[in-house]
């Protein structure tokens, strides 16, 4: 009993299915975009140009802590130079991390990062950092990695985030070898 009406119904339902599959794959860039825009999950903002001129920096101080992690498959030592620093809200500041390859061969690492508490993340803007490039260190090489950041004064207007007195910026370095995880049967 396969008349035209049935084919129409089935075809529209197939389109619905295809749409949902598309949505599932679109979720990958959409998820990243959503996190960047809202700061959810502790995603800090990436400021392209630093503080816009004319932004009032307030007198309130906020503590920024630095946390570092290295995946055990990467033979590096990676630490912040200072464990924490006090910064005026709105003031741009530079923080330094040092990374040292203590293994026997050259190794390349990439970093993932986030900010806690999450509600403060959208007000934490990184101006310049090392996070988007792969870093290659020869055996025994030691480098300084700078991060330039500021805390957006808009945080003071957010009733939820206003009470935050300490923000933690956390980096995790992973090995960047492309041959990493292919399955072996």
């Amino acid at each position, binding site marked *: 009993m396969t008349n035209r009406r049935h084919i129409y119904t089935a075809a529209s339902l197939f389109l619905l299915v295809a749409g949902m599959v598309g949505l599932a794959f679109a979720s990958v860039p959409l998820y990243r975009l959503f996190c960047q825009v809202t700061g959810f*999950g*502790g995603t800090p903002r990436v400021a392209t140009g630093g503080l816009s001129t004319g932004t009032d920096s307030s007198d309130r101080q906020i503590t920024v*802590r630095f*946390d570092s*992690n*290295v*995946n*055990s*498959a990467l*033979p*590096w*030592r*990676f*630490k912040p130079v200072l*464990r924490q620093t006090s910064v005026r809200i709105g003031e741009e500041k530079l923080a330094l991390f040092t990374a040292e390859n*203590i*293994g026997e061969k050259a190794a390349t690492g990439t970093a*993932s990062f*986030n900010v*806690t*508490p*999450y*509600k403060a993340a959208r007000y934490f803007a990184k101006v310049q950092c090392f996070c988007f490039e792969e870093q290659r260190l020869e055996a025994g090489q030691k480098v300084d990695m700078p991060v330039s950041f500021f805390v957006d004064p808009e945080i003071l207007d957010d009733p939820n985030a206003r*009470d*935050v*007195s*300490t923000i*933690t910026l*956390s980096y*995790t370095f*992973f090995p960047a070898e492309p041959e990493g995880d292919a399955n072996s049967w």
Partner: protein
Amino acid sequence: MFTHFRSVATLIALACATVASDSSAAGLATPWQVDLQPAASPVAEQIQSFNAILFTMEALITLGVLGLMGFIIWRFNAKRNPVPNKRTHNTALEVLWTVVPILILVVIAFPSLRLLFFMDRTFDADMTIKVVGHQWYWSYEYPDHGDFTFDSVMIPDDELKPGQPRLLAVDNPVVVPVGVNVRVLLTSDDVIHSWAVPSLGLKTDTVPGRTNETWVRVNEEGTYYGMCSELCGVNHGYMPVAVKAVSKAEFDVWSKNAKQEFADNGASTTRVVQAPREVSPREVSQ
């Protein structure tokens, strides 16, 4: 009426707890326990009192529906009521049973959100510790006390000393001072784990590549146990959490000693491609 419910609920909960558990031990479960572990932190206390509200509601609703159904089956049994009526609508009733559940949910929502936001509060923490999940043990870092780190591994059955609870005791518990707000940062070195201590009202997943944050203030000295709460591989059941809360003075002494005893944090991250430590169940259950 609301407070009346609360006291009734608390009474019921207390009764259950007293009847069912030997409440002298805090920080871990007791045999035949039916209720939450005794609360040892402000968050856990709030969870307990919220639970009393929830428990009252759910018990009343379940027993109410059960009772009503029992009555209906008895009263409208075919023998007692051979002729069924044909009523299929009653607007007042339908409105009532839509609105009343909504009201009950609203009543639950207020304390629920209050608890949620209290757990999420960030205020001045006096110190920070970092928790890292591994297959299959936890490691703890103390960035504010000299940046030392150590592993906390379950003690296998055949190495337990008397008084150490099986599957919960560890070689190095994480030590914190009582009465102090502790910020806890959490991450994982491999797969997703979850750091949980029920009596302290703590449970936060540890996700690789991401740092989560929570806080705790322990009310009293003691050792508080928990277990990994996210399936993480073969020894998921064998990586317990042990939090030892001591006086501030004792903590100061301990942290100075620990800094010397444990490897400095910098050195610990130099472990090169270390294979996950295998704690095979065979070892454990001997």
